[in-house]
C-alpha cells in the first residue's frame, strides 16, 4: 500500500459504471445500493469513489436516482475521495457514530436496499444502522456488483495492462534475486521494493521453494534457496487500483527430468485453458480444458480441492474475482479479465505454478504480460 494517488477516473467512466449498476439495480428492484468495504475488501467502494482508501472501513451509496455518497472511517480517506472528486457528498464517520449514513438512507426513503459485502458487515455497524434500516427490505448485492465489475471498460483494461507490465517487471526482479543461499523473505523484499518504486500500491505475493515435497504456496519463510530447488511465485501487483497476476516457476540449476516433465504438463494445461477462452464461454469451460490435460496424462486427482483451489480467477479492483473452477457457470463476457493458472501439486515435481492474465475477446483472448512461459533456469 502507498498513498501516491493515481490519476482521476474520467467522468465518462463514472457514468458508464453508474449506468450499468443502475440497470442491474432496476432488474433487482433495488432503490439503493450500499457498498461496504472492510479493510481487506475495498473493491466496491473504490469502484464507486475512485479513492485509494486505507482506513478500517468505508461505505459508498448509490441511489436509483440522485447523487451518490461516500462515508469513510478516516479523514485521510475522505481527503482521498475529495481528490478524485467522483462523489461530492462525502463524510467521515466513526464506528460508534454512523449518523450521516443513517440520515442519508432515511432522507432518500429507500424501500429496498442492496448491500454489497453485506456478509462482511461487522455486527457493531449493523447494530448502529438498525434504526435506519428497520423499515427497509435488505438484500445482498455482492453478486450484483461482482457481475457488473466482471466486464471492464476499455479505460479499465488500459489500467490492467499497466499492472500487467508491472507483473513482467516483478518477475524479472524475482529471477534476478534468486541465488543459492538467499532466503525467501529476502527475495520478497527485493520484489516489493522494485514494484513500489514503480508506483505499485500493493502486491499480493506467495512463494514456495523446495523440491517435490512442496504441497502449496505459503508466506515467505526463512528458508534459503538450494541447488535443485523449484522457486514458485504468484505475483500480483496493484497499480492505480487494478490488480494483475503472473504465476511462474524458476529452477536453481539445471532442471531434472521430472521438473521438465512437470513444466511441460503445466504449460500444456495453461495453453489449453487459454485456447478455450473466448467471450461467451463459462468459467467451467476454461477450467475443464485445463483439467482435461491433467486427466489425459493421468494426474486428474490433482485437480481436486485436496490439492488445489481454482484454475484461475478474475482480475480487477480485487485480485481474486470470479473463480475459474469446474461447476462455476459464470459466463465470461468480452472485456472480462482473468488469469488462467492450473496451479496444483503433482508427484512429478511438487507444487507448480504457471499462468498468464488475459483480457477476454470475442474470438479469443488478449495476453497482458510478455514474460515467456518457460521454466526459467537460474545458475546454481
Amino acid at each position, binding site marked *: 500500500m502507498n*498513498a501516491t494517488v493515481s490519476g482521476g477516473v474520467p467522468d465518462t467512466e463514472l457514468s458508464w459504471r453508474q449506468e450499468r449498476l443502475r440497470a442491474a439495480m432496476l432488474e433487482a428492484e433495488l432503490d439503493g445500493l450500499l457498498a461496504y468495504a472492510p479493510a481487506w475488501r475495498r473493491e466496491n467502494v473504490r469502484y464507486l469513489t475512485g479513492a485509494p482508501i486505507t482506513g478500517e472501513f468505508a461505505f459508498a451509496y448509490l441511489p436509483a436516482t440522485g447523487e451518490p455518497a461516500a462515508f469513510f472511517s478516516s479523514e485521510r480517506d475522505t481527503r482521498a475521495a475529495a481528490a478524485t472528486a467522483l462523489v461530492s457528498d462525502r463524510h467521515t464517520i466513526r464506528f460508534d457514530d454512523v449518523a450521516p449514513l443513517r440520515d442519508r438512507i432515511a432522507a432518500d426513503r429507500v424501500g429496498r436496499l442492496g448491500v454489497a459485502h453485506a456478509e462482511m458487515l461487522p455486527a*457493531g455497524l449493523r447494530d448502529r444502522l438498525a434504526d435506519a434500516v428497520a423499515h427497509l427490505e435488505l438484500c445482498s448485492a455482492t453478486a450484483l456488483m461482482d457481475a457488473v465489475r466482471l466486464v471492464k471498460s476499455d479505460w479499465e483494461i488500459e489500467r490492467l495492462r499497466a499492472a500487467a507490465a508491472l507483473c513482467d517487471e516483478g518477475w524479472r526482479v524475482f529471477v534476478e534475486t534468486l541465488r543459492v543461499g538467499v532466503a525467501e523473505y529476502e527475495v520478497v523484499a527485493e520484489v516489493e521494493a522494485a514494484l513500489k518504486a514503480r508506483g505499485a500500491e500493493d502486491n499480493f505475493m506467495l512463494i514456495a521453494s523446495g523440491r517435490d515435497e512442496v504441497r*502449496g504456496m505459503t508466506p515467505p519463510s526463512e528458508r534459503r534457496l538450494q541447488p535443485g530447488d523449484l522457486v514458485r511465485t504468484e505475483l500480483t501487483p496493484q497499480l492505480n487500483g487494478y490488480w494483475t497476476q503472473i504465476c511462474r516457476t524458476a529452477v536453481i540449476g539445471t532442471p531434472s527430468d521430472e521438473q521438465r516433465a512437470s513444466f511441460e504438463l503445466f504449460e500444456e494445461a495453461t495453453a489449453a485453458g487459454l485456447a478455450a477462452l473466448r467471450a461467451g464461454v463459462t468459467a467451467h469451460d476454461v477450467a475443464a480444458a485445463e483439467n482435461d490435460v491433467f486427466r489425459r496424462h493421468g494426474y486428474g486427482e490433482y485437480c481436486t480441492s485436496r490439492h488445489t483451489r481454482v484454475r484461475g480467477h478474475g482480475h480487477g479492483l480485487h485480485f481474486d474475482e470470479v473463480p475459474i473452477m469446474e461447476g462455476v457457470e459464470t459466463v465470461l463476457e468480452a472485456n472480462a479479465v482473468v488469469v488462467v493458472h492450473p496451479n496444483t501439486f503433482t508427484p512429478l515435481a511438487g507444487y507448480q505454478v504457471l499462468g498468464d492474465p488475459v483480457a477476454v475477446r470475442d474470438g479469443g483472448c488478449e495476453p497482458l504480460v510478455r514474460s515467456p512461459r518457460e521454466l526459467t533456469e537460474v545458475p546454481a
Partner: protein
Amino acid sequence: MKRGLVPTAVSEETRADCAARVERLRSHLLEAGCDAALIYGDVSRAEDIYYLGNLCLFWNEGVLVVPARGEAAFATKLSQRSQPWMRAAGTIDAVRSGPNLPRLIGQVLADAGTPARRVGLVDRDWWPCAVLDTLDESLPETEFVDLGDVVRRDRVVPDERELEALRRLGRVAAEATNAAVGLEGTPGERIAAIERIARSAGMTDVFATAESAADRSVTVTATLQLQHLWLRVGRSIGGPLADHAAAESARVASALRDGASDATLAAALSADAPGDVTLSAEAVRHVDVAAADRSERTNGDASLRRDEVVVVTVTAAQDGGRASHTDTYLLREHSAELLSGVA
C-alpha cells in the same frame, strides 16, 4: 496482505509466552462464566490470534477457539494445504479448514468435549454478520456473550520480550525512514527504500506511505509489524510546516508520562502558533495501530498509563499544507522513552 517473514519454527520462549496468554484468557473466561472464547480474525485484523497462537493469518479469515478446559484450535477458511506451515509456524496444533466457519467452530467444540452452554465472543462488534448469524444454527443450545476487547486489553502493556521486539521494530523503522527521507526521488522510490530495509530485516508486514501536500512537502510514514506488534514512524520534509511539526513534537514528547491524556498533549502544543497554522496532537496505543488506520479506537479512552506504548502524531496544517511528525514511545512514570529514534 502479509508478505513478510513468517518463520517456520517456534522458539520455546514463544511457546511459553503463548501458553501463558491463553491461560490468562482462560481466567477471563472463568470470571465471565464462559465455556469457551471465540476470537475472529481476518488478514487485516488478526493481532489477537497472533498474540495467542503465534499464527499469522496471511489471507482470508479464521476463528481461534479457546475452551476453558482443553486444547485451543484454529478454524480457518484457508485450505488444508495451509495446515502444515500453520502448525509449524504457530503454537496451535489443531487446525481445521473449510468454507463454513460456524460449522467448523461447532466441530471444534464438540471434538474438545466442551459443553458450550455459554460462549464468549471477543470483540463481538467486529464479527462479520454472516458468521455471527449462522453461529446460532451450528450451536443452537449456546448462549453467546460479548467479551469485548478482553485480549486487546491484555496486550496494552507489553512484557519484556514484547518490549525487546518493539525496540527492534523501532530500530528498523528508524533506519528505513531515515533512508526514505534522505533520498531524492519519487514517492514510490521513498516507499521502496522502506520496503527493502524493513522486509530484509524480517518484518512481518510493512505499510509505507509517501504523501505530497499542496506546499510541496512530502510526509513519509513507515508502519511496521513484527509478530503481533505494530509501530509507526513518520516525518515530513521539504515544506515550511515540517519544522513546526518537529518542534511541536518535541514539546508533546516532553509531556508524555503516566496519566497523560488528549488534553495534556493539546496543552503541550504552542499557544502562539504563527499565522493561521493549526496544530494538533494524537496519541494511539500501539495495540490500535495496524495496516488500516484504527486511530479512532483510542480516542476517548482513559488516560495513558505507564508501561503503555503509544504512537504520537503531531500535525501542523496551514492553507492546504500539512506536515506531521510521528514517533512511538514507551511511557514511564515521569517521562517517555523514544522507541523509534529517527535522526
